């Protein structure tokens, strides 16, 4: 990913973004993790070649009611002409000159298989109106703006709501009897070392506030931490969820890929597929799953190469919170 471009980002505001406070609705958190940038972006692109004039760009933006035109030739992405660029060209009297000359080239781009949560973080961080989207081969495949995200989330939330309504009708409201005490989910992004471990730290803090026994807190926190790190370094991204209810704490790590070839092998002490880089960061000793099993009263792992991995750790809590 390239560095932030020439437009100066506005100072970030202090409110946490979606998925950062731990208080966002679960459905939403799951959605922004499950949806990929490609599911949300506009793929039907209007583009111009480098030798088109800025005037043409201006005209195109007016006609299509868009605020930026990607400059592209045969899938190769060169830059973006934004309204700012047009205004600058008008002021400087260079509106008849080529887009190739006056487009913005220092751009922050997204990749199409990144989770939506990633895109949201970028909108928060850089305050640009839109990001070009490239695929693995660095070809331009779309453009994403906040409006695309809002639309996609509304559609998905409506769908989810309908599903939940039909489920709750089937259950006939037996939910209250379960006496759920705490439940939270954290989306975990691949290689996001800015945040890796944060969810487990928060889980520990909450349990301390609720005055659970020190030993129990440690076991839950260790399981959460190892599973969170595994999501970060081994999966393509996933969700770490945990809940505490009537006498047990459950920590569940779920992801949609790449899956584990040989689960039995992966659960052995000292076996790891981590590369040199991961090991230089202090992970990849192959003890993670062993550690999780050691602190758990129940341990379950299901995985399939090519699909995903789910690991569930259950820790019994005698007496619950003090």
């Amino acid at each position, binding site marked *: 990913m390239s560095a932030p471009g020439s437009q100066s980002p506005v100072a970030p505001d202090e409110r946490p973004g979606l998925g950062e406070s731990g208080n966002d609705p679960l459905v939403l958190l799951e959605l922004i993790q499950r949806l990929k940038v490609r599911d949300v972006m506009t793929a039907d692109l209007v583009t111009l070649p480098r030798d088109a004039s800025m005037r043409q760009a201006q005209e195109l933006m007016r006609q299509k009611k868009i605020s930026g035109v990607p400059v592209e030739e045969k899938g190769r992405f060169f830059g973006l002409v934004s309204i700012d660029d047009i205004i600058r060209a008008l002021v400087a009297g260079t509106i008849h000159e080529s887009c190739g000359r006056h487009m913005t080239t220092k751009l922050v781009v997204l990749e199409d298989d990144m989770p939506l949560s990633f895109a949201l973080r970028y909108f928060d961080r850089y305050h640009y109106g839109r990001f070009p989207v490239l695929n693995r081969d660095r070809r331009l495949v779309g453009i994403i703006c906040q409006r695309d995200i809002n639309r996609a989330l509304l559609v998905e939330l409506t769908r989810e709501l309908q599903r939940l309504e039909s489920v709750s009708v089937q259950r006939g409201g037996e939910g209250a009897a379960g006496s759920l005490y705490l439940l939270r989910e954290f989306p975990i992004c691949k290689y996001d070392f800015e945040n890796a*471990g944060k969810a487990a730290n928060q889980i520990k803090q909450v349990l301390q506030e609720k005055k659970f026994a020190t030993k129990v807190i*440690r076991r839950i926190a260790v399981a959460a*931490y190892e599973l969170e790190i595994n999501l970060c370094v081994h999966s393509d991204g996933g969700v770490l969820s945990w809940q505490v209810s009537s006498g047990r704490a459950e920590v569940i790590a779920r992801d949609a890929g790449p899956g584990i070839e040989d689960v039995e092998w992966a659960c052995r002490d000292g076996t790891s597929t981590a590369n040199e880089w991961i090991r230089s*960061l*202090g992970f990849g000793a192959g003890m993670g799953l062993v550690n999780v099993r050691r602190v758990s009263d129940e341990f379950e792992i299901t995985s399939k190469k090519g699909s995903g991995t789910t690991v569930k750790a259950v820790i019994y809590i005698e007496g619950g919170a003090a």
Partner: protein
Amino acid sequence: MTMSEVAEVLQAEVLVKGDGLLRRVGHVMASDLMSDVLLVDEEDMLLLTSLASDQVLRTAQIVGAVGVVVVNGKPLPSSMVNVANDLHMTLATSRLSKYDACVAVHAARHPL
């Protein structure tokens, strides 16, 4: 010994005071492997490490460590101070090598 006394023995510079400075250090662990650290069952441990990353602090919080001392005078990424502050984790750096740091703590605890 308290964490602040250990810091002195290690000629360490305390970057974040956190909650640990006056706590007693009962155990010292020197490791660069996070899973190893998570195996420790003591609540009054000091972590000596040559890794300078946020995850060292996050791991230390999980096991309730008294503090983290990064050895070898490694320069720390600026994020570490923020994370240590967030977690109230005592953070210090020492110019000593991991080995010399262990020797120094041991000598201070068991004077000849």
